[in-house]
């Protein structure tokens, strides 16, 4: 019955060229998992400028986007790369306006998530029990209070965030755009429904009956997705659960690069501008390193195999 429905499959360069324009507000989400690095690199490659980029945890991907000069404003809640340290491209701009300033709009993690929720659910604001006594509302006038009509104390609220484009990475999708992901699913569902346009890069495009055999894994139904792009390895150096693990060496390698603006530019030349696409990136990474991360050993579905064994 879906034979007449249009496919949303396109290649990454077309997806970015079609949906991401200079000056837009763009959210690339993925909380320590399923981070859409390949899509970010394509944005860099296409030379987008003056973007407002949103993300709970800016991470290396945003250090790269900012280093490449794509970004004029950052909306986020945590400006570091976990155990791998500071994002020096961000720090240079904030601390010394080097090479130019970067506007920052700052929340806590739950504040960012609530902003996406309000955006997704078409609410004028979302309440949360944070910020009482904090300096954050003084720094950010978008963190406001409302009166509790049931007689309790005022409560802080955050406004909706509705990106022009939301980009996510996932394990799989069908060609209609039903996107399935598992493991840590972050703010992806909220950010995607909040976005006016949604691009999903996936490890593999699968037949519809694979998706429909386990509909609870679909976090983004086709109606929420505008473009589906198959990009194997699209989350490296982050990871895709059941496909490949995080390249922790890369995270450690980034901080010294990040500390030196010239090194950042050289890295971008070598790994982004100098390569046509993710396949070339993985080739440059090398088979040995890539397969050491477990790539190519996926069962294609978490738990299915374990579960069969467990219940046998």
């Amino acid at each position, binding site marked *: *019955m*879906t*034979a*007449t*429905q249009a496919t949303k499959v396109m290649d990454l360069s077309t997806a970015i060229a079609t949906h991401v324009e200079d000056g837009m507000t763009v959210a690339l989400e993925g909380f320590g998992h399923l981070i859409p690095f390949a899509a970010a690199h394509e944005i860099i490659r296409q030379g987008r400028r003056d973007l407002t980029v949103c993300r709970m945890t800016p991470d290396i991907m945003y250090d790269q986007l900012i280093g490449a000069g794509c970004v004029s404003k950052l909306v986020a809640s945590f400006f570091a790369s976990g155990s791998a340290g500071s994002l020096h491209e961000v720090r240079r701009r904030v601390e010394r306006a080097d090479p130019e300033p970067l506007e920052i709009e700052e929340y806590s993690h739950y504040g960012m998530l609530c902003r996406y*929720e309000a955006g*997704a*659910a*078409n*609410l004028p604001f979302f309440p949360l029990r944070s910020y009482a006594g904090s300096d954050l509302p003084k720094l950010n006038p978008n963190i406001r209070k409302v009166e509790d009509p049931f007689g309790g104390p005022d409560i802080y609220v955050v406004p909706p965030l509705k990106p022009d484009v939301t980009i996510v990475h996932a394990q799989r999708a*069908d060609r*209609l755009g*039903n996107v399935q992901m598992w493991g840590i699913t972050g703010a992806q*569902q*909220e950010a995607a*429904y909040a976005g006016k346009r949604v691009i999903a890069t996936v490890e593999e495009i699968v037949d*519809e009956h694979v*998706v*429909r*055999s386990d*509909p*609870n894994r*679909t*976090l*983004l*139904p*086709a*109606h*929420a997705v505008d473009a589906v792009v198959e990009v194997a390895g699209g989350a490296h150096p982050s990871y895709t659960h059941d496909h490949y693990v995080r390249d922790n060496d890369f995270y450690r390698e980034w901080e010294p690069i990040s500390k030196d603006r010239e090194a950042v530019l050289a890295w971008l030349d070598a790994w982004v501008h100098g390569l046509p696409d993710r396949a070339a990136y993985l080739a440059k990474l090398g088979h040995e390193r890539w397969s050491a991360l477990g790539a190519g050993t996926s069962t294609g579905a978490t738990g299915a195999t374990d579960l069969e064994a467990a219940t046998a």
Partner: protein
Amino acid sequence: MNHADVAPNSTEFLATVAARQLAGKRRVFAGVGLPTLAVDLAMRTVNPSVELVYESGICGAHPDGLAEGIADSVLVTGAEAVLSMHALFGYVLQGGNVDVGFLGAAQVDRWGSLNTTLIGDWAKPTVRLPGAGGAAEIVPNAGECIVVLRRHDPGALPAKLDFCTSPSPVRAREEDPRMEPPGHGVSTVITPLAVLRRPDKFGELEVSEVHPGVTVDQVRAATGWDIAIADDVCVTEPPTVEDVRLLRDEIDTVRLYLR
């Protein structure tokens, strides 16, 4: 095509007329009963690619049998997505992703406000109806709503509702002009006598089609207010023989909703 010999007040007639409203529509929020038949028929006739959304969380249902409820396992098996109700009501519906809502009601007023709560006195109703369910969310948030009524008389289409469960944009605007809902509200009411339409988001229902053998005066007399008549009012195209065959021999073979 040959027209089937079914009465305008039959389920076959109403379901067929309802199904035709779905031509060109994308995502339909469907209830159980007559909407189930209408949506199934639409998928087999005017709109094979309609996406079925149910308030239970199902998006893109592909039932291989007749659903007996909006949470029936036939809707889950083979569905494209089963979302949390949090996502379904918040993101899919309130977020503005539903094009058409399919509703029933005990009463509809001239602006398409619906009563599904009670008949009679609020404190001690004559009839306690099922209540709001998801209709209070569907009417403001769906692109438009189609209502099917089993009766067409001043009780079902009164000058004044006994209770307004799911308000038209007209009533929302009366409460606060800034509270205008995103959706059109009720666009179409299908009754045993006629098809009523409300082309203007803040306008009134008008008689758009009268069923074969029914006059405009009969419709007017059976309506609780002085209902407007469309300039181009016409006679409803009745179900074809094939429509009725599909409903009886392929869709509702167990006669769950058909008698």
